[in-house]
C-alpha cells in the first residue's frame, strides 16, 4: 500500500490553501482531485471576487487559481493525483482511489477532506428531459469548455450562483428572460441581482417551476406562484418558451466520505445539509481526519481559502511541526473568517455554526 503523511481530498480553494502551509513545513502532501484540472469551482469562476484583498478580492477566480497552484507546484514534497476519485475512506485512515480503472489504496497519517459540495435538484414534472441543467453544470460547459448550453434559459434560484451564471449566460449571447425565486427575497448579493435586472431579466419572487414542457427536450417552462408555505397556487400558471431550465437551488456538502468512515455528522439546514462535527482545529470526530471548505458548511470561496489555510496549519501543528508565527497567523485568519461572516449575508452561516456548536 502507498504511504502518505497528509492526504488532501479535493484541490479546490480549500484544499489548495491547506496544502501550502503543510508543504512549507516539509510535510509530504498528496493532493487528490477527480478532475483533470486543479482548482475545483475556481476553474469556472471567470468573475471577480468581492471581499478583502487578503483573499484576492477584485481578481477573477481563474486567476486566483493560477496563483494558488503556482504557490505550491514546485515543492518536491508534493504529490498531485488528478483524474483520481477517492471511492472509499476508512476510519483507520486508508484512502481507496480509482484512476483510469486502476484501483489503489493509500495509508495516510493525516487526512483533510476538502471535497466541496454537490448541487441540489428540484422535483417538478418532466425534470428529467434534456435541457434541464444544474447551474454549476451550465457554468462548466460555458466557462471551462466554451460550449453554449442553449439559446434561451430560465434560471431557477436567486442565490449568487444563479445570479452570476445568468449574467455570464448573457455575456455569452444567451437570452435569460426570467429568473424565479421561491422565497420573497433575493438570496444572493443585491449588486449581482441589480446588474441582471438592468439587463432586462424579469426577476419574480414567490414563483417556481411547475413543469418542463417538450417532447424530446425542453421547449417551455410552466411556472406558478407559491403561497407562504411554498405550495403552488392553482390558476397562476404561465407558460414561458425556453430551451433550457437552469436549476440553482443550493449546494449540499459532500460528506459521503466522512460518513463512510463513521465521522459524526449533523443535519444543519443553514449549512446546506449534513456537516461533520468539527472542533476549533477543524478536526472531525475521527482522530487526525480534518474537514474544511464547503464540506464543513456551504460558504463562499473566500471562506474556503481561509478555512483551508487554518486547517493546513492545524494539521502541521498536530503532526509536530513548528509553524513560524502560528500564534500570530491563526488568530488573524480566524478574525478574517469572522469578518467574512458578518452582515446580513453571513447570518445563515452564523446560525448554522451555532447549531453545530463550533461558533
Amino acid at each position, binding site marked *: *500500500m502507498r504511504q502518505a503523511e497528509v492526504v488532501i481530498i479535493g484541490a479546490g480553494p480549500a484544499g489548495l490553501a491547506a496544502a501550502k502551509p503543510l508543504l512549507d513545513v516539509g510535510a509530504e502532501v498528496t493532493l487528490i482531485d477527480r478532475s483533470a484540472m486543479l482548482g475545483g469551482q475556481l476553474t469556472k469562476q471567470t468573475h471577480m471576487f468581492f471581499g478583502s484583498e487578503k483573499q484576492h478580492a477584485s481578481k477573477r477566480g481563474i486567476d486566483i487559481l493560477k496563483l494558488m497552484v503556482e504557490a505550491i507546484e514546485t515543492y518536491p514534497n508534493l504529490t498531485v493525483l488528478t483524474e483520481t476519485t477517492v471511492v*472509499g475512506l476508512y476510519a483507520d485512515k486508508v484512502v481507496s482511489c480509482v484512476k483510469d480503472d486502476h*484501483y489503489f489504496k493509500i495509508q495516510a497519517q493525516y487526512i483533510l477532506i476538502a471535497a466541496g459540495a454537490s448541487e441540489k*435538484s428540484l422535483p417538478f414534472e418532466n425534470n428529467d428531459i434534456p435541457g434541464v441543467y444544474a447551474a454549476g453544470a451550465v457554468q462548466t460547459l460555458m466557462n471551462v469548455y466554451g460550449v453554449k448550453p442553449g439559446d434561451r434559459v430560465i434560471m431557477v434560484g436567486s442565490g449568487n450562483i444563479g445570479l452570476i451564471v445568468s449574467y455570464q449566460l448573457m455575456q455569452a449571447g444567451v437570452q435569460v428572460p426570467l429568473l424565479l425565486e421561491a422565497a420573497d427575497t433575493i438570496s444572493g448579493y443585491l449588486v449581482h441581482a441589480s446588474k441582471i435586472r438592468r439587463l432586462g431579466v424579469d426577476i419574480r419572487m414567490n414563483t417556481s417551476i411547475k413543469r418542463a414542457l417538450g417532447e424530446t427536450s425542453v421547449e417551455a417552462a410552466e411556472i406558478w406562484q407559491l403561497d407562504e408555505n411554498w405550495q403552488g397556487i392553482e390558476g397562476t400558471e404561465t407558460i414561458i418558451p425556453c430551451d433550457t431550465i437552469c436549476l440553482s437551488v443550493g449546494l449540499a456538502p459532500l460528506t459521503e466520505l466522512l460518513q*463512510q468512515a463513521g465521522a459524526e455528522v449533523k*443535519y444543519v439546514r443553514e449549512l446546506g445539509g449534513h456537516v461533520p462535527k468539527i472542533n476549533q482545529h477543524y478536526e472531525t470526530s475521527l482522530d487526525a481526519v480534518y474537514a474544511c471548505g464547503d464540506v464543513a458548511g456551504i460558504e463562499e470561496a473566500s471562506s474556503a481559502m481561509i478555512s483551508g489555510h487554518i486547517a493546513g496549519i492545524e494539521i502541521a501543528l498536530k503532526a509536530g511541526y513548528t509553524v513560524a508565527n502560528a500564534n500570530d497567523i491563526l488568530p488573524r485568519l480566524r478574525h478574517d473568517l469572522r469578518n467574512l461572516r458578518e452582515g446580513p449575508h453571513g447570518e445563515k452561516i452564523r446560525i448554522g455554526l451555532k447549531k453545530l456548536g463550533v461558533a
Partner: protein
Amino acid sequence: MDPKNIIICRCSDVTLEDLLTLFKEGYTTFEELKRIKRVGMGPCQANTCGKMVQWEIAKYFNRPLEVVQFHNMRPFTMGVKLKSIKEQADEE
C-alpha cells in the same frame, strides 16, 4: 402536479409517485425506500436525489427535516470494476 412525471432518483428511475405509494404502504425511512426501490443506489449515490428524498419524507409525515434520518453511506462512492479490485489485491 402529476407525481408519476416527477423523477426523484434519475439513476434508478424512481418517481415521486413511487415514493408516495411506498409511504402509503407503511415505509417511512430512507433506508427502507432504498432497499425496496434502489433509490439513491445508482452512480451518483444519492448525491442528487438524497436531499429530495429527505424533503419528501419530511413533507409526507410532517416532520422537520432535521429529524429525518438520512441513508447510510458505505464505500464506494462510485462503481469500481471487480477486475480493478482483484488486480490491486494480486499486487499486495
